[in-house]
Structures are given as C-alpha cells and as structure tokens.
C-alpha cells in the first residue's frame, strides 16, 4: 500500500466530500451508536442498507482501501464464526451443524451476526468519512466541536503517520526477503512480524520525534488557534445531513423503545 493510497479518495468532488467535517463527525456518531441499540440482525441489516447510498455516492476508489476493508471483513467474519461455535449452554439453542466436538447453534449464529454488524457498520461508515475528508479539516472540525486541541491533533498526527509506517514496513519486508527470512505460513508471518517490530518502532520513533520538533518549531505549543485558513461554515447541505442524522437517530430510538422492536432476535423468536 503506497502512501498516496491513503489519500487517493480525497480529491473527488461528491457531496460527501463537500460536507463540513462537523456534519460528517455527527454522521459517524450516528452510525456508531445506532447499531448498539438493536439486537436483531434484521434491523442491523436495515441500518447497513441506509449507509450504502452514502457509500455509493462518495464514489470511493475501492482498490486503495481494499486492505482496510479486508481487515474489517475478516474481523467481522471472525466474530460471526467464533460466536456461532461458542457453547452458550442455553436450553433453547438449536444445533445447526457440528464439526467434531464443535456445535454451531442458531443463537450463536445470530449473536455473531449482531456482533459482526456492530463491528462492520461503524467501521465501514468511518472509512467513508475518513477517506473523503482532509484530516486537517477533520481535526479543525473536532476543535470547533470543543474537543481539546491536543486530542484533535493527535488524531491528525496519527493519520499523517500511517503512510510513513506502511512505507517503512514495506522496506523492512523487502529486506527480510533478501536476508532469507521465511515468511510463509502463520508461523513465518509471526516470525517476520516479530523481527520487523523493533526496527519499525525505532524508525517510527525517530521520524515522529523530528515531526514533533518541526511542529513545535512552528509554535504549536502556544495553543493559540482562533481562526482557520479554511472557511469552516455550515452550509445548507450540512444542515440537511445534521437534521437527517438526528431524525435517523431519533427514529431508531422510537423504533427500539417506543415500539419495542429490535430488542431480540426476530428469526428465533
């Protein structure tokens, strides 16, 4: 993954890209909190479907974020599989199929789906927001929302540093190949990771130290930020998204607590 892949989606002019970072942050919060209200995979599927138009309209270049997407899918699938075979010891659990002494139960499967959705939905929506927003704007958005400056910039610094670490990791991996490190299989990968950890840490620390000094040399510690280079004004489309997010969240609350739906597994019940 090259450094430029991390920012490959920044320069498209879709409405998602043009949204104010504060509207985007509210959207993320909406998609992080709402899945937590429901225990029914059906309702969680609906939440995911609501998020899909936002994904599609952001016209995200998939290749550049494939490794991230892949990691999320693996995490979510692992949650589903682990949960399906977890021994819940509940009387009403039906065994769907067995592999040796492992029994896949319906309760396990649905619990896994809930967990998988709760991992996947916030992550997918966070990806769409992060890949379409300039991190500096996101940090400034956080500051406008009264998040302490240090935290906002920690966030920006982390995003800035990712590509450097990836580049470093690629170089180390090439060096391992040339020095005959066996990287095949799980054991090989683990060994390769163990060997890479120290040089990666040392190199990253060195680079982060320089970056820290460069930032301090520009008076960061004065903490005097008042106004920003960019015009950070909420426009009509931002208000629309904010209102829709609030309506979406309020609607979810009403469905869950007003109508009492989505608390249990509709498939089993």
């Amino acid at each position, binding site marked *: 993954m090259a*450094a*430029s892949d*991390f*920012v490959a989606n*920044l*320069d498209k002019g879709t409405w998602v890209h043009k949204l104010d970072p504060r509207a985007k942050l509210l959207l993320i919060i909406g998609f992080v909190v709402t899945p937590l209200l429901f225990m029914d995979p059906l309702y969680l599927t609906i939440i995911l479907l609501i998020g899909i138009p936002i994904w599609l309209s952001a016209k995200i270049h998939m290749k550049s974020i494939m490794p991230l997407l892949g990691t999320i899918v693996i995490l979510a699938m692992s949650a589903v599989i682990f949960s399906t075979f977890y021994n819940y010891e509940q009387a009403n659990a039906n065994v769907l199929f067995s592999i040796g002494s492992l029994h896949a139960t319906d309760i396990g499967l649905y619990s896994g789906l809930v967990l998988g959705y709760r991992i996947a939905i916030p992550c997918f929506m966070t990806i769409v927001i992060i890949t379409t927003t*300039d*991190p*500096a704007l996101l940090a400034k958005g956080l500051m406008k929302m009264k998040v302490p400056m240090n935290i906002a910039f920690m966030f*920006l*610094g982390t995003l*800035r540093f990712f*590509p*450097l670490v990836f580049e*470093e990791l690629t*170089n*180390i991996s*090439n*060096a*391992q*190949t*040339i*020095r*005959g*490190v*066996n990287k095949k299989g799980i054991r090989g990968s683990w060994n390769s990771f163990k*060997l*890479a950890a*120290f*040089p990666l840490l*040392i*190199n990253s620390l060195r*680079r982060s130290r*320089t*970056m*820290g*000094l*460069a*930032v*301090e*040399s*520009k*008076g*960061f*510690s*004065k903490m*005097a*930020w*008042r*106004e*920003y*280079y*960019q*015009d950070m004004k909420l426009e009509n489309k931002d208000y629309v998204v904010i209102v829709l997010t609030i309506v979406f969240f309020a609607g979810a609350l009403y469905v869950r607590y007003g109508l009492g739906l989505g608390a249990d597994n509709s498939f089993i019940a």
Partner: protein
Amino acid sequence: MSTDSIIHVKDLNFSYPSVEKKTLKNINLQINKGEFVLLSGTSGSGKTTLAKCLNGIIPHLSDGNLEGDIVINGKNTQYVPMHELSSEIGMVFQNPEDQIFSIRVEDEVAFGVECQGYTQSEIKERVAYGLQKLRLEDIKKQITFSLSGGQKQKVSIASNLAMLPSILILDDPTTDLDPVSKQEVMDILAELKEELDTTFLIIEHDLNDLIEFIDRVVIMHEGEILYNGRPDEIFNKHFYELNQLGIRIPDHIRLAKYLYEKGFTLDNFPITKKEVLEWIKQLLTSKKLTFPEQKNLPKQDNTELVASLQNVNFSYNKEKQILHDINLDIRKGELLAIVGHNGCGKSTLMKNLIGLLKPTHGDVEINSKNTKKSKVQDIILDIGYVFQNPDNQLFCNTVEDEIKFGLKNRGYAEDIINQQLELAIKTVGLQNKRKEHPFSLSRGERQRLAVATMLVSNPKIILLDEPTTGQDEQNLNSLLSLMETLINDNQATIVMITHDMEVVAQYASKVVVIDAGKVVMEGDPNDVFFSNYEKLRSLKLKPPIISQFSAELSESGFPHVSNWNKFSEQIIKNDKELAEESKRSIV
C-alpha cells in the same frame, strides 16, 4: 553587540545528558540582520546542536547542560517559551518527509500561522505570501505525499516564511534530495536572498552552488568554531586546514587554489565558477598556463558477464510503462553506477535485475539464472543488497547475531557460519563491537554492519541502493573504499543506484544514465561526462564542476578529466613547478 546584530551567542557551552564531552564549546557568534550564513564542518562537529540551541529546541524540548547566552532579536532563548521564539526563528529540517504535518500544501503553509492565533484574513494573507515567495501557487491544493523532495522542502520553507520570521535556519536541507530537487531548493534560496531581508543560516555539505551567494562562512569542528569570515578569505587562507578536515571544497575553489600555488593571482580570491572559468580560459589562451598532454590509459577488459538485461520492458499496469527496451551488460569486477533523477526507473530496474520484479517483455539473466525461470530466493543467494537505510535490514540483538542471521536462515552449518562471521566482521572493522546492539552503533557503523550481513554469503554481485543519502562524507568514502577493496580482492561486481555525480565520477568504472525508463547514456564516466555535458545538464544531472571545466575548456588545452582525483593524479602530482608540500596540501 552591534545594533544590526540579530543573533548573538556568548560563551555557549552545551553537553547532552550522560555525555561527559561537551557538544558545543565556547561558542561566540554574532550574525547581523539580512546576512546569509553558511554553517559547515565535519560530521558530529555540533552544527545541528547549535541550530537547535538557536531556535530554542535546546533547552525547551531537549535536555542537557547549557551555559552561556543566546539572544535572538533581543530575546534570550532560555527565558522565553519556545512558541514565542517560533515567530522569530523558523527551522527547516533535513528530511522533507518527516517534517510536513498536513496533507495539503496550503494547509501546511497555514499551520504555523494558525498556531499563532491570527485572524482568518491575516492567515490567508500570509499563506498567499509564503506560496508566492516559493512559487507554489500552482500546487497549493496538491497532496503533500505526491510532491517531489524538492517541492516538499520548498513547502517547508514556505510554511516557515509565512510566519514572517526574522531568521530562517535550514539544517542540511538538500542532503536527502535528488539533483533536480537539490537544484530547485538552491535556486529558490538564491532568489530569496535577493528578495527578502530575512537572515538565513544554512547547514550544508554541498557547497558547489551555495558558495556563490553566501555572505559568511562559519566552520565548526569538535564543538568549536574554527573559522568565521567571508568565503573568499576562509577558503583562501585556510584551504589546507579545511581540506584536511574533510570539508567538501568545490572543484573550482580547488582549481583556483592550485593556480594561486603556481603563482598566478587575482585581486580577490575567486569564489564563483564563472570567475574561475574565465580566469583559466584567459591563462590558457595567453599560454601562461599549459597542461601536459594526456596519455590514454588502456582500459581494463573484463569479458566475463555476470548479468545481462535483454530488451527488458516493465510496467506495473497497462496504462504506464516504467522500463522501455533496456539492454545492459554487467561484467565481473565492474562498479556500475545507475543514475537518473527520482522516478526515472532506477529502482524498478534494480528490482528487475534481482528478480523481485519480472520483466513484462525481455529477459534478465543474473549469475547464469534467468529471473523468469528461477525463484527470487535462489537468485538472491549470490547477491548482496545494501539498503538505503541500514536500519531497515537489521533485526538482531547483537552485531554477531546480525551477521550470522542470513546464513542461519539458509541453514548453513555452525562452523561455516562462525568462519564467515570472522571474515566479514574483520572486513568491515567491527571486531570490537561484536556484542553490542546494532542500534547502539553510529550511522556509519550500522551501514558497515549492513554490508557485513551480506558479505557472509560471499555474494558475487553487491547492490548499493542510494548509498549517499543521509551519509556524511567520511562514512560514504569508507563504504565506497570498502567496495573497491571487495572488487580488487574478491572480484566482486558492484551495482550502485545513486544521484551523486561526484561519487560516480570518482568510483564508478561504468555509468548508465536512465531517463523516463530508457538508457540514454552508457560508458566510462570520464567519456560520458565529457561528451554529454550539456545533455546531462538538460536531464538535471550535474556532473562534477571539473568535468564542466573540462568540457568547456578542452579546446583551449584543459585536460580531459571527470573528477578532482583524476586531475590531482594526472596534473597536480606531476607538476614539476609545484613544491611537494603544496601538492600534498591541494590533493
């Protein structure tokens, strides 16, 4: 203290925690408003530490024992907070990658100004000023990752200038840059000097262009200021001392000194290339100066091929082809330099050579193995690869373990491993450090350790990836001298990617110039630099100054040489008019 003084350093001493030896000793320095000062010296002489003291990183962000006073524009750095100094004194660091914090050019330029708490209109005004001064308006929306090294360094300079500092320090700003980027930065600095009344303090090793527009030079050695004065004075009066210290004295200054030693003089010691060129031209035309005719030395004819690329084409995807019809023979005992600016395809060519990448068309044969038919793991058995950053290839806890690592991975017997370890550790001179942790070694030692890790497997071909980047002069020379020894003693073949044309001229037996994925020149560096001087310049590859003189003055009788060492060997050492002592001092 003069009224014009903007930097005033008095009796400064500094030592880092747990280090007995002082890094800075008795520094007294005064710099006036608007001066352009070069700070140069040997590696570890305390230049960067002095710069950090000036901008307040020491003592505010870095511990140590600091004595004396540093006053910047009336403010004593020890008693005012770092952020207050930041609007007075800006600093551009060595590596452009590590100092840019923002994703977009204009945001980076705005960053420091925003930190100071200005209003939006002031911020915009200053960003526009910074962008305009560095000619960055056209790329202000671009993403910083996509910029060239030179553009990144220009963005760093702009982000500092936008804060309207009285002083700008540049700490080795071109060391990590390719020639095109280096030139970009030097050109803009020369322009800024004319346009602004900012005081510039630049730490730099490559003085070839810089020497022409600096007002003052300060030379440091072992924590002290040795010399401080006008460049023509310092380089004339202290030439021998500077030469002995290992300062990279530009070829034209060496030539001028040679002429002075021969008894020719001018009213002022010449400091620009143009002055020296015209002076020599005049001396040659008037026959006051003559050079002996050169004998053409027979060239070594090594016929054994160790690698060959035939019609190699390569592309990562269908849209963009990286290499076009590369044909190249690499012979045993050669030191082949592959040169070209960033993105021309040098690294891709190197990866194709060792089978990390396979050609889309054509064939690569290395050590009698076709890369398309052999596994990378088998090909690299006979190849040593020294990475640009040695820290990326060190994985163990002791120097010994590090050297043994590769052989252990390949399943060699313990007695063979130990035998090879002793040979390799002796070759690179790290016998006394065998139990130390690799990361506790100095940069030069880590580079030598990286060489030792590949020497153990007796590679027939050694690849050096940008060995000049981030290396000081002494470390680089010791690495390349080691390579010459390996060629002579072990009949090794060295392939080196570099953009340092002086290194090419001095060490390479063959040079291949790559541009846009094609081989555009190939041959002995002496011939290539002489016959293609203008073309190389158009490719923004600047051959050593002496080869420029050679190309431009050959008709007047200037010798056909590509580097200073050759000029010394062929001309100075054989000059009967010159006293032995003078000869020793100039070469």
